[in-house]
């Protein structure tokens, strides 16, 4: 068997048509995950009773199990919950009318929330306590100090970690293939099966993932350079 280079190019064009969907499936969970992550990180740092241990379990469970499990659990679990609620409220709603994409994005969001919360927590904890005390000393409230001093520093320190999360979740979207969502890997598999050229199709999809990851890394590097331009320390 020889590799059909022309077909790689053909597949590249065919598969990259669904790139927007994959990007949407990456960006939505990561953004929502950061929101969840900030909330969870604060509750865990403040060590709120009941809520903090619960969220500790949430974070450790989602970080301790494969993402494919989250997708499957949400895909099979949420419809049961929705049906029970619909029945209790006597609403005519079929869980089967929920698009599969919704489950995937929900699962990835929950997962991203757990990863993001750890990053934000370590980011906040990496800012010296004296910064908060200094902010208090000049009369700022807790939320002002957080918004103006602590969080910006925490975020700029967490950029490399967030880059890894974004790339990690870009790669995690490939798991939606198991629920036959037509994202990059799913379409690659379809293109491969139709033409019986599996290797070529997966080389093409690999190249697409690779370029997107490289672009994300390059962007993150530029942002990091700008954000940390004033905090080089020393002379």
């Amino acid at each position, binding site marked *: *068997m020889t*590799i059909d280079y022309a077909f790689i190019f053909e597949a590249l064009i065919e598969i990259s048509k669904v790139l927007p969907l994959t990007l949407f499936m990456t960006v939505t969970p990561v953004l929502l995950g950061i929101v969840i992550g900030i909330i969870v990180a604060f509750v865990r740092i403040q060590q709120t009773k009941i809520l903090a241990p619960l969220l500790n379990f949430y974070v*450790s*469970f989602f970080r*301790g*199990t*494969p*993402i*494919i*499990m989250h997708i*499957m*659990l949400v895909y*099979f*679990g949420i419809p*049961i919950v929705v*049906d*029970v609620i619909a029945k209790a409220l006597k609403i005519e709603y079929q869980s089967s009318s929920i698009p599969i994409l919704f489950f995937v994005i929900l699962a990835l969001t929950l997962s991203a929330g757990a990863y993001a919360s750890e990053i934000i927590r370590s980011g906040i904890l990496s800012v010296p306590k004296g910064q908060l005390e200094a902010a208090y000393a000049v009369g700022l409230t807790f939320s002002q100090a957080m918004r103006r001093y602590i969080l910006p520093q925490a975020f700029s320190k967490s950029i490399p970690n967030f880059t890894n999360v974004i*790339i990690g979740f*870009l*790669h*995690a979207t*490939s*798991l939606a*293939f*198991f629920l036959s969502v037509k994202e990059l*890997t799913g379409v*690659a598999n379809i293109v491969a099966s139709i033409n019986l050229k*599996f*290797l070529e199709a*997966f*080389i093409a*999809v*690999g190249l697409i*993932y*690779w*370029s*997107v*990851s*490289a672009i994300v890394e390059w962007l993150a590097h530029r942002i990091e350079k700008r954000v940390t331009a004033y905090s080089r320390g020393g002379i």
Partner: protein
Amino acid sequence: MANDLDFTLIAKVLPILLQYLPVTLEILVFATFFGMLLGIVIAIPKLLHIPVLKQIITIYISFIRGTPILVQLFLVFYGIPALLKLVNIDVTRMDAMYFVIITYTLSNAASFAEIFRAAILTVDRGQMEAAYSVGLSGIQAFLRIVLPQAIRVAFPNMTNTMISSLKDTSLAFSIGVMDMVGRGETLIASTTRALEIYLALSIVYYVIVMLLEKVLKRNERYLNRYMPKEAASS
């Protein structure tokens, strides 16, 4: 479809799934071991700045880090037989397990190489010079002075790689390996209760990851035993 969760089924399938745990651990152990070996080998040209080889390895590492492990699995699964066919070796009937171990080895090697390289670079150059000044040879200085310090730095990252590699093994079933998830899929087919099976699988993964984390944390403390208290705890 019956709606309520059948907890007895979870308890019932757990022992069945656990029988396939050795397969998962086998993938993990082989992939980590060979991944470390290959990682050391490919870290050397980058550390010594060997031209051409260094660039090739940079591209290799970037590719592995830039593509999903699922795509890598398919690439190895379809690519290696195609490659070997060029030299007239037919491996189309080879056990899928080998492809899985090869994929995870290649993937781990990229991570380990970067970890080793970064760890060795964190060791102060003066240490090497001090070792030379007391008369150690280059290899002795590296093995006795630099390496132990580098391992201490590298260990937490190696731990993370191993744990994410353990979680990644859950994809091995996609090319037909009968591991825990593979067995789970057949159980779903026979019981038609997907949620319970996936819950059981999640429990197993969660417990193993927690155990592995605990064991590795203890080793980390051991490696840090000569460090001052503050530095060790940070």
